[in-house]
Each structure stands twice: as structure tokens, then as C-alpha cells.
């Protein structure tokens, strides 16, 4: 009986089940490849060698950010390069400046982007609280903090910042975890990997190497850095109660996000782990966290099994006002949707991956990047997933290395329909980092996708929904100038309530546009926009206008 279920899942999730939808039978959603027209010439260099080092198949990320403050979303693209890393230009990241006319220019040199580490992730946030967006770069090897000087250039602030993460960092996220007004940092680290270990993985008969199963490697412990408010950070991992010892039962962190899960106006912490239970830390409000991972129901699947957690996203998929948690997993696993059942002080989830329709389409796919956005502007959050295997020769014939991405259309009540038919034409890629951002500022969320060893993709959203939209730009009080942690609720006359949270870092190794977008179906007028600011103040706009980005400032 279980075998029949798996067979049905395999058919439902067949990689060939997607195709472009020129006839519109798939609905109004339209995504079009725009990387060439936009002048984005970037190809990820994984450094793939005959030795098949594991880091070669794990990166990397991408970020939407407005680094020069001109109002247009620029793109930071992480490069990996030679492995073991040699500090050469092969590992040089790229910064593409948005010209505001639908095209980008390479601003890497002009902006003095200096990182040449073996790149994995990028997290964009105002780390030093001076009003512009800085960059935290997760690397195999030493991480980097690039501080924005506010004049269109960056400087390397790694040494003086006290951020000294080494080893193999995968992803990072910022939030004001201790409520002192500045942004703290969590760094998810993967495994202890020694390129000189000489471990052979692959086909012993032919001698063909492939990437090793990560069960062979000990997990690397994650790190929490407290912002001291003077431009420096200190390692407070154990002091705040989230220290995890490295070992097979912990670590192997892949994704991380901060969001208030129990509506107590404090950011909680969720970490996806590969082949280990995911971590969930409840913010106690006194500068420390409580590990509620296993009791929360969001650490393992409904069968009590830890999965291969990769990317993650938090969003209110069922319209009840709190953030549900989604995680991408390995093939022969379902991507996870944990429905939020929390009350203040009691963080609780149930695994709704199967019943929601979120998980089954992923059975033959290996998910990495994951974003929640209202792609079709119908007022309900959808999910886009970047897929691609870690092994060049996966175990099952039905599973491929390069894989099509997925679009899951939400119905606003926590159920999903596979709308991958709306994917644009193009060969499948080995998807990794993924970020959502409205690069042409037309109110429709576009997507940037990093592919391991492949081209950077930019999908322009050309959906004609017949409805309208509303965007929100939050200007918080310094030092949290982007109001990370704010909760924004849009209520419409139709009784719909849409909620977004301002975050810095999620998906897989990536950061999305910090502006918050709401879609509104035809005939649905917004009634009120409420902002719960990180300071505790609440602001409401009655009858906000549509078809525009509204810049709101945190009241004093």
C-alpha cells in the first residue's frame, strides 16, 4: 500500500510534468527569462574537479538589495571558484547595479567588492545601523562583512567587526534578537570538511567519483553573534542558549531565518539542518533563547523522521495571521509545510506537508531555494522552489541532477496546487540560491535564481492579473533602519487579511527584496494597512492607495 502511494507520488512529481504555458491554460501567471535582456552575464563556477569535493555542489546564493539607495533593486551574486579556494579572481563575487531601465551593469569594481572566498551565501542588511545595506558573505573558509560606505562603495569590515566565522558557513540571517535595537547575526554552518581527507565516494567498480553523502561528515556548530552597538559583534552562541555542539546529531545547518512565530513581538529562530532535526529556538525576551525544536513539531516530519532540510521560508500561507514554516528537502522526501498553531509563549506546529498539497509534488525533486510571494497577484501567497540534485548520478532513474523548478499556487487557506506549467521555457538547471525582488518596480515579484555551475537566471513577472498591488517600504529607527522584525498586515474590504514580516536572510543562502508586496484581486480595495514596528509602536493607514510603493517611517 505504501508502495502504491510512492508510485502515485512519483507520477505526480515527474520532472517532465512541467512545460511552458503559452496558451494560458495554467492561469494568469507569466514568468519570462529576462537575464539576457537585462545584461546579467554570470555563470556560477562551482570549481568542480575530478576529486568531487562536497562544497562544489552546494552553492551558491543571490541577493536583491538597493546598495546605492537609488530606489532600484540591485543584485549581488555569490561566486565560488576554485576548490580548495585559492583566493584568485575565480572566486570573485559580482554586484550588478540596476540602471532603472530594465538592465543591469556590472558595478563590482566600482563598488570595490573585494570578497574572493569560496562563496556560499549572502545576507543583505544594515549591520552597522548607518542607514545603508551591508553584506554578510558566508564562505567555505573565513566569512566576510562588507560595509556599505554610503557613497556607492564597500569596505571590508570583517577584521574589526569581530565576526570570525570560519569552517563552512552556509547561510546567515540578521534580526534584533535581544531587543536592544541593533541587528544580531546567526550563521548556519554545514559540516567539517577536509579537502585532504582522501575519502572516495562514487562507483567503486568504475572508479568514477561523485559527491559524498554528508552522513560521512561531522556537523559544524552554528554561531550566534550579538551586536555590541559599536560596529562590532561578539560570539554569544552559548550565552544566549543556542549553542549546539558539533556532532552527528546536531549541526549541518543549511538555512536560517528569524521571525516571530508566536506573536509575542520577538523574533524566534528557525534553522534547517541536513539529515538532522531542524532547530527551533523560542525567544524568551531576556536576550536568551529556549530550544523547543522537538516539542514544536517543526523539527522532524509527521513520521518523526529528520529530513535533509535545505532552504526555508516563513509565511502566512493559510491566512490566519501567523507565519507557517516551509522547508525544502531531499528527493524521496516531501518538502515540508509546518502549519503554525502557536500561541504567545507556546510555539507549536503540525506537519501539513501532505494534506496541504505542498509536499507531494517534490517527491522526485531535491529542493534548495524557496521563496513565498504572491506571484499571480491574487491575494494569496504562492511558493517558488529552485531544484537541483547534489549528486551528478542520483540513486533513482526518475531523479536527475539538473531539475525543473516548481511553482505552487496557494489558495490562501493553506492548500496548494502545482502550477509548474507556468514555468518559462528553458533547460532545467541545478538550482541553489533563490531570491524574490521587484527589479522593475512594477509591483510584480520577479525571481533571481543561482544555479550550481550554471547561469544566473532572472525571471521577470509579466502576470496580468486584472487586479492591483500595494508595496511597503519600511524605514525603521536607527540602528535597525530597515525595521527588520516588523509585521505588516493589509486588510481588504473582502475580509481578506494578508500579513508579511520584514526579514533579512532566508530561502537558501539568499536575501530577497526587503520591500513587502501585496497582491489584490480585481475589485478588492484595501481597507487598512497596519505596521507593528520593532519598537513596539503600531501605525495604521486607513484606505491606503494601491498601485504604489508606500514608504513608511517608524513613529517616534
Amino acid at each position: 500500500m505504501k508502495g502504491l502511494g510512492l508510485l502515485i507520488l512519483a507520477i505526480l512529481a515527474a520532472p517532465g510534468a512541467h512545460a511552458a504555458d503559452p496558451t494560458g491554460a495554467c492561469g494568469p501567471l507569466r514568468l519570462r527569462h529576462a537575464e539576457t535582456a537585462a545584461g546579467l552575464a554570470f555563470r556560477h563556477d562551482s570549481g568542480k574537479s575530478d576529486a568531487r569535493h562536497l562544497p562544489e555542489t552546494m552553492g551558491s546564493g543571490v541577493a536583491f538589495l538597493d546598495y546605492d539607495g537609488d530606489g532600484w533593486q540591485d543584485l549581488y551574486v555569490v561566486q565560488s571558484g576554485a576548490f580548495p579556494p585559492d583566493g584568485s579572481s575565480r572566486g570573485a563575487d559580482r554586484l550588478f547595479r540596476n540602471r532603472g531601465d530594465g538592465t543591469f551593469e556590472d558595478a563590482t569594481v566600482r563598488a570595490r567588492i573585494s570578497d574572493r572566498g569560496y562563496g556560499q551565501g549572502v545576507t543583505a542588511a544594515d549591520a552597522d545601523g548607518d542607514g545603508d545595506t551591508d553584506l554578510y558573505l558566508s564562505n567555505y573558509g573565513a566569512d566576510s562583512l562588507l560595509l556599505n560606505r554610503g557613497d556607492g562603495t564597500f569596505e571590508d569590515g570583517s577584521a574589526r567587526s569581530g565576526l570570525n566565522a570560519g569552517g563552512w558557513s552556509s547561510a546567515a540571517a540578521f534580526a534584533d534578537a535581544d531587543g536592544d535595537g541593533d541587528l544580531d547575526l546567526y550563521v548556519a554552518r554545514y559540516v567539517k570538511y577536509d579537502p585532504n581527507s582522501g575519502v572516495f565516494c562514487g562507483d567503486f567498480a568504475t572508479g568514477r567519483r561523485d559527491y559524498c553523502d554528508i552522513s560521512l561528515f561531522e556537523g559544524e556548530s552554528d554561531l550566534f553573534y550579538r551586536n555590541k552597538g559599536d560596529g562590532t559583534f561578539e560570539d554569544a552562541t552559548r550565552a544566549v542558549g543556542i549553542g549546539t555542539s558539533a556532532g552527528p546529531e546536531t549541526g549541518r545547518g543549511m538555512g536560517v531565518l528569524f521571525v516571530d512565530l508566536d506573536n509575542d513581538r520577538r523574533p524566534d529562530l528557525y534553522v534547517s539542518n541536513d539529515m538532522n532535526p531542524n532547530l527551533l529556538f523560542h525567544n524568551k525576551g531576556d536576550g536568551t533563547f529556549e530550544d523547543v525544536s522537538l516539542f514544536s513539531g517543526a523539527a522532524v516530519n509527521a513520521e518523526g523522521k529528520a529530513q535533509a532540510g535545505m532552504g526555508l521560508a516563513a509565511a502566512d500561507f493559510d491566512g490566519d495571521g501567523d507565519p507557517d514554516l516551509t522547508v525544502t528537502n531531499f528527493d524521496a522526501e516531501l518538502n515540508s509545510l509546518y502549519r503554525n498553531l502557536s500561541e504567545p509563549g507556546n510555539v507549536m506546529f503540525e506537519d501539513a506537508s501532505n494534506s496541504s498539497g505542498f509536499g507531494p509534488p517534490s517527491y522526485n525533486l531535491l529542493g534548495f531555494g524557496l521563496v513565498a510571494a504572491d506571484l499571480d497577484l491574487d491575494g494569496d501567497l504562492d511558493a517558488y522552489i529552485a531544484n537541483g540534485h547534489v549528486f551528478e548520478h542520483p540513486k533513482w532513474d526518475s531523479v536527475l541532477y539538473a531539475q525543473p523548478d516548481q511553482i505552487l499556487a496557494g489558495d490562501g487557506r493553506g492548500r496548494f496546487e502545482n502550477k509548474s506549467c507556468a514555468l518559462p521555457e528553458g533547460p532545467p538547471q541545478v538550482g541553489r540560491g533563490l531570491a524574490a525582488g521587484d527589479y522593475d518596480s512594477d509591483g510584480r515579484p520577479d525571481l533571481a535564481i543561482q544555479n550550481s555551475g550554471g547561469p544566473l537566471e532572472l525571471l521577470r513577472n509579466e502576470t496580468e492579473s486584472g487586479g492591483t498591488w500595494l508595496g511597503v517600504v519600511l524605514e525603521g529607527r536607527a540602528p535597525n533602519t530597515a525595521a527588520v522584525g516588523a509585521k505588516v498586515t493589509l486588510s481588504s474590504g473582502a475580509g481578506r487579511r494578508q500579513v508579511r514580516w520584514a526579514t533579512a536572510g532566508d530561502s537558501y543562502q539568499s536575501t530577497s527584496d526587503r520591500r513587502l508586496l501585496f497582491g489584490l484581486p480585481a475589485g478588492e480595495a484595501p481597507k487598512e494597512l497596519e505596521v507593528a514596528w520593532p519598537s513596539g509602536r503600531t501605525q495604521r493607514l486607513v484606505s491606503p492607495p494601491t498601485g504604489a510603493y508606500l514608504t513608511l517611517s517608524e513613529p517616534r
Partner: protein
Amino acid sequence: MKKNLLLVLLLLLAPTVAAAAAAAAAADTAEPKPGLTVEAIRIEPAAPGPDTLCKLSVTLRSTGTKTASALGFKVTVDGKELAVYRNELVYKPVEPGATAEIRLHNFWSSETGRPFPAGGKMNVEVTLTEARWMDVKTENGAEVWTPIGPVEGLPKSKTIAVIVKKSTQ
């Protein structure tokens, strides 16, 4: 006869002249019509060179009795419109009878399709295209902004000529 005619004419015109004089006097003493004006534009650095990121702020003055906000702008640099403002509204308060400095987007001194000015000057025009009067009050601890109506008399513009440096040195 002529003298009598002139007297009659003066008597006939007197009410009209008096009314005009009274209207002029009233105009001199009346409160200005509630509205918003663009009082100043500030650019940093004050003398940008080529490929320089410029910070732009505008000072608005209110002659109204209510808070003004939902501010829409149009900005041109040497006659080229910066498209980023086309679908944006700034919800910063301009308090009654006060001035408020509003930070707008940065812009580059030269851009695709807008070369660095050869004449030594860069003209920056900021137009306040729309705004709304707001009723701002506190309800149950929340600050509630309710639009009352449009600010009339817009658009209002101001232009400054920025001296530019020929090189970044």
C-alpha cells in the same frame, strides 16, 4: 457742464474703486491658502564629480492646519526624469505650519542616457506632484492616519543648479 459730468462719473465709479481697494487690502492680510511648497533642495556632495552618488533631500513647508503626507514626487536631473518616483508615495508627516526635510532617493551624477553635464552645472528639479491632508490620532495605542482630502495647488516645483566638478579628484 464738463465739470458736472466729471463729478457724476466719479460718483458712479467710486463704489467700484472702493471695492477693488478693499479686496486688495483683504488679500494682503488674509491667511495663505492651505498648501505645501517646495522650499529647498539639498544635494550632497554639494559639488559632485563624474560617477558620484548624490544624496537628495527636499524641504517642504506647510501652510495647512492638518498634517500633510502621502507625498508624490517627480525628480528630473538635467531634464531627464528619474523613473523610480512614478509609483511611490512617501508617508512622512509634514506638520501644520512647519517645514519637514524629506530624504529622497540617491542618484548618480551620470547615468546611461544622461551624461555628466559638460557645462559645469547640473540642474535638479523636484516637483511635489501630490499630497493628502491626514487626520492623525491615537486609538488604542496605535497611531491612525486617515486621509481627509487632497492638498490643493499642486504640483509645486523647485529647481537648483548644482556646480559640478570635472573630475572626482
